[in-house]
């Protein structure tokens, strides 16, 4: 009777988390050994319950790139300036969802146990996307020369953030708001003067929503109230998992019983994250725009470089400098520290993206199909990559 119960328990596990029984080799092996034993000791019934052969392949979760062929839908603008906030939000959500749903239970588990990324490319890529979006937001703002135009870009991103909230994509929302509240942007006083009061109000609300106050209580409340498709702020939940893992012991009562309180806490978070794999995204992406965004987000800058650019746009006011003798000496030499995830872009991947991008650009802008696009179009598309100077110079003639 107990044996049968255990087999039913196994069945429940298999049915609830099929991906793990397809991807985790250790788990597969143990299950198969267990099944052998069940076959020897029990009846047919036991044996049948522990069948994992019918689980569909979850190999897609391992592959880092996989793209669906998409039927071409008319001409679309690839210019950031022309894109509506809702389009940007939807496409960012598509990228986010695609990246986040590949992270398996085992990847999360590995991160929590090691406390860092160890052979965890799916999670690493998701973090790189997050950081990429934050930097892209900052660079797009800083690419504009006048305070007024920078304020326009900020306004646009505030609206993108609003749409992201509407789409219940909290992870990208955090990345965008985080980018905007970074010191390189929030120090731009002249730019801020051009922001409309209602925009500032929304910005404040968004910042409050994802603020870390009271352990992200505003976010948690909002997230729990959302129904249907939603993407959590991954980092916050990873932090929870690590905290629970560190604070509670695995075993209680002199190591004789599993710590159910801990397991329940872990389950609540894991369940939220793993269930992302089975939700369906409603976004119908324009793949050309996706390629463009992918390339825009892959470009890597250090925080120093971005901050220097910010100083260049709006130099420091010497009067506002703190002059106390206790001010620690800031290290002057620029450190080549690549903060965060250093994804040195693989040249072949970048080339592939560039090739796809060029194809997209020509599909959309080469109106007479003669292999040329107009100078004017070229200049405006190049504006999507504000810091690719060499790229502009080299290719202008093509």
């Amino acid at each position: 009777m107990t044996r049968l119960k255990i087999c039913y328990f196994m069945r429940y596990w298999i049915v609830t988390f099929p991906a793990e029984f397809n991807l985790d080799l250790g788990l597969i092996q143990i299950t198969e050994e267990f099944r052998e034993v069940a076959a020897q000791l029990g009846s047919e019934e036991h044996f049948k319950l522990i069948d994992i052969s019918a689980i569909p392949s979850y190999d897609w979760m391992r592959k880092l790139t996989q793209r669906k062929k998409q039927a071409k839908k008319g001409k679309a603008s690839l210019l950031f300036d022309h894109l509506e906030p809702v389009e940007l939000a939807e496409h960012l959500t598509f990228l986010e969802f695609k990246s986040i749903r590949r992270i398996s239970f085992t990847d999360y588990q590995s991160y929590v146990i090691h406390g860092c990324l160890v052979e965890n490319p799916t999670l690493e890529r998701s973090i790189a996307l997050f950081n990429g979006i934050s930097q892209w937001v900052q660079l797009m703002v800083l690419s504009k020369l006048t305070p007024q135009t920078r304020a326009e870009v900020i306004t646009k991103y505030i609206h993108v953030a609003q749409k992201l909230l509407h789409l219940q994509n909290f992870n990208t929302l955090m990345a965008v708001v985080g980018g905007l509240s970074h010191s390189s942007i929030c120090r731009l006083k002249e730019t801020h003067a051009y922001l409309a009061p209602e925009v500032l109000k929304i910005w404040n609300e968004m910042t409050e929503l994802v603020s870390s106050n009271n352990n992200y209580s505003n976010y948690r409340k909002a997230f729990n109230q959302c129904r249907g498709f939603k993407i959590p702020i991954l980092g916050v939940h990873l932090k929870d998992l690590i905290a629970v893992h560190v604070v509670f012991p695995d075993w209680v009562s002199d190591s004789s019983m599993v710590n159910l309180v801990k397991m329940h806490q872990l389950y609540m978070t894991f369940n939220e994250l793993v269930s992302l794999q089975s939700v369906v995204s409603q976004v119908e992406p324009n793949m050309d725009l996706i390629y463009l965004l992918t390339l825009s987000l892959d470009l890597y800058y250090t925080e120093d470089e971005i901050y220097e650019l910010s100083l260049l746009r709006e130099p420091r006011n010497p009067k506002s400098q703190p002059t106390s003798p206790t001010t620690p000496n800031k290290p002057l030499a620029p450190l080549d520290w690549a903060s965060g995830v250093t994804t040195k872009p693989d040249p072949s991947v970048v080339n592939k993206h560039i090739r796809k991008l060029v194809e997209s650009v020509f599909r959309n802008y080469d109106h007479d199909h003669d292999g040329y696009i107009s100078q004017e179009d070229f200049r405006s598309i190049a504006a999507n990559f504000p810091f690719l100077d060499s790229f502009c110079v080299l290719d202008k003639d093509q």
Partner: protein
Amino acid sequence: MGSDDSYNFVFKVVLIGESGVGKSNLLSRFTKNEFMHDSRTTIGVEFSTRTVQLDHLTIKAQIWDTAGLERYRAITSAYYRGAVGALLVYDISKHLTYESAERWLKELYDHADPHIVVMLVGNKKDLETLRTVPTEEAKDFADKKGLMFIETSALNSTNVEAAFNEVLTAIHKKVASKEVTRGSISAVTLSGSLGLTRESQEERKGCCKS
């Protein structure tokens, strides 16, 4: 938490350093008595405050742990804002975690108050046999950079209390001292009218007048 009802100061302290150096363990050691476990889980695990007595003052230490978030740039830079103290933690058995101290320091000074009190903390002192960072080397580095220094073990609680208490004392000294006036340590948030004593109001005058 009843002890939170009255305090003179709230100090925000951040725990920074590479992932896996034991930041969360240090924090859970320090705040164990006030550890809150919310069974509804909507709030998540919250165990980041502890109230301590320094001389005649009650200080609430609000400690922000970045464990698990180290790589999320836009999230972590927000953590530094308003911090008046920082524990920069490395693992004495992993030299790489010590080498990165300088980068963390730079990032901290970029985002936090310039008067922030920083302590370099060599954690995992219990792993003496695996030590790769000599105490003297770390101490020299700390002296050169004007940081406080201590070695701890979250595993057996060695120096955990001392580390936090020394940092809190140093912050309080700075706040109380004349050289720190308006415009600096601005983030020291005094409790509102709630539970304010006469002494703390004097403190407040002392640190806010220009």
